[in-house]
Structures are given as C-alpha cells and as structure tokens.
C-alpha cells in the first residue's frame, strides 16, 4: 500500500448527498480480476454519455479538476455496496483523500486499506472546504496526516480526527495481514478455547 503523509492538491467539489458505490464504479466494471485500471471508469455514468463522449459539466471533466487528488463530498459518501472497486477506481484516477460529513462504514474501511484518507468533518467545515474547492485549480488544499490538519487555499486550518492504528498504517504503508499474523498465537488459543465452548461453530 502506498504511504500517505502529506498531500497538496486540487480538490473537486461534489455536493450531491448519498453518492453511492454504484455511481463511483458501476457494476459492469466489477468483472475485473485486477485491482488497477479502473480510473478511467470512475463515476462512469455521470462522466460519460452512452456513446463514450464526456459529459462536459461533470466536475472531473472540467479542465480545473481533471487532476484532482481530493474530493469534497456531500453527506453519506460511498453508501451501498461493499465493492472495493470503488476506492480502487478513486485511487487509480489519482484521488488520495475524500472529505465529507459522513461516510458509509464499509467504504470508509476500504479506503484505509488502499492508501486513501477519508476525513469526516462537521457541516460548517465541509461548507468552507466546498466553497474553497469551487474556486478551481489554483485553490489547492493541503492535507497533513501527521499533524492531522487540512489547510485551505487561503490558509484556513482545520484539525481532524483519525483512528491512531489507521493513521499509523497509512503513514507507514503497512499491510494489516502481516500485523495480524504476528498475533497468530492469540488466534490459536482463541480457537482452542472456543472449540471446547462452542464446538458447533
């Protein structure tokens, strides 16, 4: 997993609430057996006409946001399916951070497994970031995970919360499985204990 420490980049405003994972990556692109290559189909049905041409007013098709690395989103971003193809598509496009008032649980988890930082902020802060993002490509925001701060293009600074374990993994690009396997003996003894208590399980 790619490390995440500090990022300064273009933020794309996506004010719509309840942006679901079917919107982020429609089902016809879930038939891949790889994790990469989904960026071109990110937000496919919002981004392209049926004939494959771009829908000009969709935010990521606008010249200012074609290289966005941050999304400022409406409430409940990533709701719906558990498909990890959603963060894979975001990452493949180049998005490393999404900020919203809330995220769906599974999507939120999936982001951390892929080097994407989802940040939950109160409505009034998201409103400020959204307005800043709407200024376009020159309005770059800075996300500092170490310091846990977001800095707008005009220098306003907001602190954010992040789970300590997840922060550690993201900053160091750590593989969860490796860390868990180090607890192998705890898993062994749990299995031994439950084999006696709940043998049917």
């Amino acid at each position: 997993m790619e490390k995440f420490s500090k990022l300064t980049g273009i933020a794309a405003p996506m004010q719509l609430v309840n942006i679901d994972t079917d919107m982020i990556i429609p089902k016809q692109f879930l038939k891949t057996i790889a994790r990469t290559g989904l960026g071109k189909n990110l937000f496919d049905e919002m981004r392209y006409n049926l004939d494959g041409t771009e829908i000009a007013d969709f935010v990521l098709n606008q010249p200012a946001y074609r290289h966005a690395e941050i999304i400022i989103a409406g409430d409940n971003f990533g709701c719906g399916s558990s498909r990890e193809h959603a963060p894979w598509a975001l990452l493949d496009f180049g998005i490393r951070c999404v900020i919203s008032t809330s995220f769906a649980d599974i999507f939120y988890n999936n982001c951390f497994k892929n080097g994407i930082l989802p940040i939950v902020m109160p409505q009034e802060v998201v409103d400020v970031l959204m307005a800043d993002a709407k200024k376009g490509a020159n309005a770059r925001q800075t996300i500092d995970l170490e310091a846990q701060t977001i800095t707008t293009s005009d220098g306003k600074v907001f602190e954010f919360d992040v789970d300590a374990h997840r922060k550690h993994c993201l900053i160091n690009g750590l593989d969860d499985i490796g860390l868990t396997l180090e607890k192998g003996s705890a898993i062994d003894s749990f299995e031994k204990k439950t084999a006696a208590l709940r043998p049917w399980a």
Partner: protein
Amino acid sequence: MTARTLYDKIWDDHVVHQAEDGTCLLYIDRHLVHEVTSPQAFEGLRMTNRKVRAPEKTIAVPDHNVPTTLDRANAATMTEDSRIQVSALDTNAKEFGIHYYPVSDVRQGIVHIVGPEQGWTLPGMTVVCGDSHTATHGAFGSLAHGIGTSEVEHVLATQTLIQRKAKNFKVEITGSLRPGVTAKDITLSVIGATGTAGGTGYVIEYCGQAIRELSMEGRMTVCNMAIEGGARAGLIAPDEKTYAYCMGRPHAPKGAAWEAAVAYWKTLYSDDSAHWDKVITLKGEDIAPVVTWGTSPEDVLPITGVVPSPTDFTGGKVEAVQRSLDYMGLTPGMKLADIQIDTVFIGSCTNGRIEDLRAAAAILKGKKKKDGLRAMVVPGSGLVRAQAEEEGLAQIFIDAGFEWRLAGCSMCLAMNPDQLQPGERCAATSNRNFEGRQGRGGRTHLVSPGMAAAAAITGHLTDVREMM
C-alpha cells in the same frame, strides 16, 4: 456483570485481542465468498504464499455473474469477463480447499440464501462476506456484515477481522402488521424514518412484537436491508422459530451438540437494562405497503402517497431529489399508484425465498400479467426453485406469463444478462434503487413480492390490498 445488548454479547465472545486504543481482533466463524469480490483476495494469498487459515469455515458460491436463463449450462450465455470470474472462483475453491457450490449444483444460489439454507449460518456466530447484504444473516442473531476485498483476504489468511466496536441502535416495531403489509415494508419504512445514513456507526437490533411475529424468511428480509440504512449489521435475537429453522440443516449441529448449541443460543438476547445509544419505535399497525419513488432507499412512501417535490426537503437533499426525479422521469404531485411500469422482477437476497414466492403467487393465482410487460421470477437458490415447483407455485407464475428462472442475483444488480434498458421502469423486490443499479438509465421502484405481483397484473404500481 453489567447489562449487555445482544451485539455486546456476540462481540465479547469473539474478541481475540484488544489493543490499547480499543481496536479489536474479532474472530470470524463463517466466511462466505462469491466470485466478484474475491479474485483479488485469493491472488493476494498466492503472491504472499499464504494459505486459507480455516477452509472448513469458508464457503463459496457464484451468484452475481451467473445467467439465470434455463440454457445457462451453455457457456456462450456468459460474457468472457463473467466467465473468467466464475472460473477463477472454481479454481480458487479447489486450490484452497474450501466448500463450494458450483453453478451445476442444485444447492447453488445467492450466497445469502445458501448460507442459512445449508445451516452454515447459526445464532451467535460472526459471519462475513465481501458483499454488503451479508447483513441478512443477522436474522439468526449472528453478527453479520459486509467487508471489502482487502478484508476478504485478511479473513482468508487469519480468520479474523480488525474492528472497532459500533454503537447499539434499537429499532422496535410494536404491535402487529396489518394484512398486505410485510417484512419488506417494515425494513423500507425504517429506512424512510432514519435515512440511509441513520444507522452509520451502529449495529441495529430489530425487536418488538411485529418482528417476533415474522417468519425467519421475513426476518432475513428485514436484516438484509439494515445496510441500506447505513448500519454495519442488523440483528434479531434468536427464538424458537430460529431453532426450528436451523434444526436438521446439513451443517447444523446434531444430537448432544445441538442441545449444547440451543442452551448457548438461549443466552443471546439483550438484557432488560442494557444501554442503547439510539432508539426508534414504529407501530406495526401504522406501517403501510410502501414503494420507493427516488434513487435512494430512503425515498420511500406508502403506495397511497404522491411523488414529493424537491421543495419538501432541505439541505443537500434538495439537489438530490431534483436529480432523482429527473432520472426517474416523475413529476411532483403525481400519484404513486399511477406510475406505469414495464418490468417486474421478483427475486434477490432480499425477497428470493420460498415465502416471498408464495406471497407473489397468492396474488397471481388464476391471473395474467398485463400484456407487453416483462415479468420474471428468479428463485434465490436451486432448492427454493425446487420447492416452489413442488408446491405448484412455479406453474402459477408460468400461467400468469412470468419467466421462471434459475437461481442467481439476476436483475438486482445487472452484472449478468438480466438488465433494464435506459428509461425502462421496473417494480423490483430487490434492495437498491440507485441510478443505473438494474442497468444504465433503468428506473427502479422497490416493493414487496405481493406488491410486485399486483403491479404485474395492472401494469402500474398498485396497492396490493386491493387485490387480496
């Protein structure tokens, strides 16, 4: 000991390790696997030379991509990329030695229908699957939730999941449901009341008389859509109905082990004085047959209602409703019962069980679908299909002009040949009315099986109570 909820109890019994910051390693009793969200996980194991830690607790079945037409044994019915995914699952199941129900097996079906049917899902277990509708299994009083592919790989390799505990949310449905009102109407009405983010950060326990009165099939329908309300999982405490459903299933315990299991299951309830972080109560008798009008499961109203206006809403929802109405081709003020439909889909992990087919067949018996309308019934598993044939339900559907399909996810998510065309409008018993969910430009109205059957007869959304 302090009073605990059902969720607290199951959680406590599965903690392998707790870190200082509260992050837990949770043991997973059952891992269900399907073809869409698993290939990258198995590939990850191969690349790191890891094995499946507990293959005897891991069950795989292809469902999302699989065609449901009677000719599906012919490989040409699948697209190349679908065929690759299904054959990757075949290979992975064999190579890693996990339980497998291939397409050719009569027990094949939607993973969330197969698990309970085969007795893999039992009360008090932790159950995960790379699919958000894993919430279904909560109907047994098991802690069940969807996970992403990285977590699928984590569970395959370690049989555990890194988790932080969610909060407790009690959803109580008092009293009894009125005739024509079903589990689907309960679960949609709850989402209508709480919103699709109302459950975020919580595990829901559904309780109250109306829930107790539901069959196991109905309880699975309720829990299935907990995720549409944003909850990590939905739970219903096990009772005599639960034990009766589990007893004798192929992978349920037998003899003395059964007795020991039931004794444990009887401890699985929320203590009277347990702490709830959030509570809502709905009266069972107030719940009506409902339909969705928009592109979020929270966009739900009784069938007697009218299409709302964006101005009825506030904040970000105003823009979302305007977008929904444009997408759905609806005008504010229009009666929901006047909405004409082109297609009826009965099936999915929400409503593809035998009781759902019985409810639809009861409305359709001796009647015909409206001319020109496309209608299909897709049983949730090969065994549901066989039982429906034995009970004469299949013939009722066929006589009514429905297509009688083989088991799979079908038109719920359109990853297979069953899809809506742009602008095509569908009354569906599935779980998501998102834009493009059933096919690009397709318009979905979520309903109960009885409501779907009623709509098939009249050609428009219809109050099932008028047909009873």
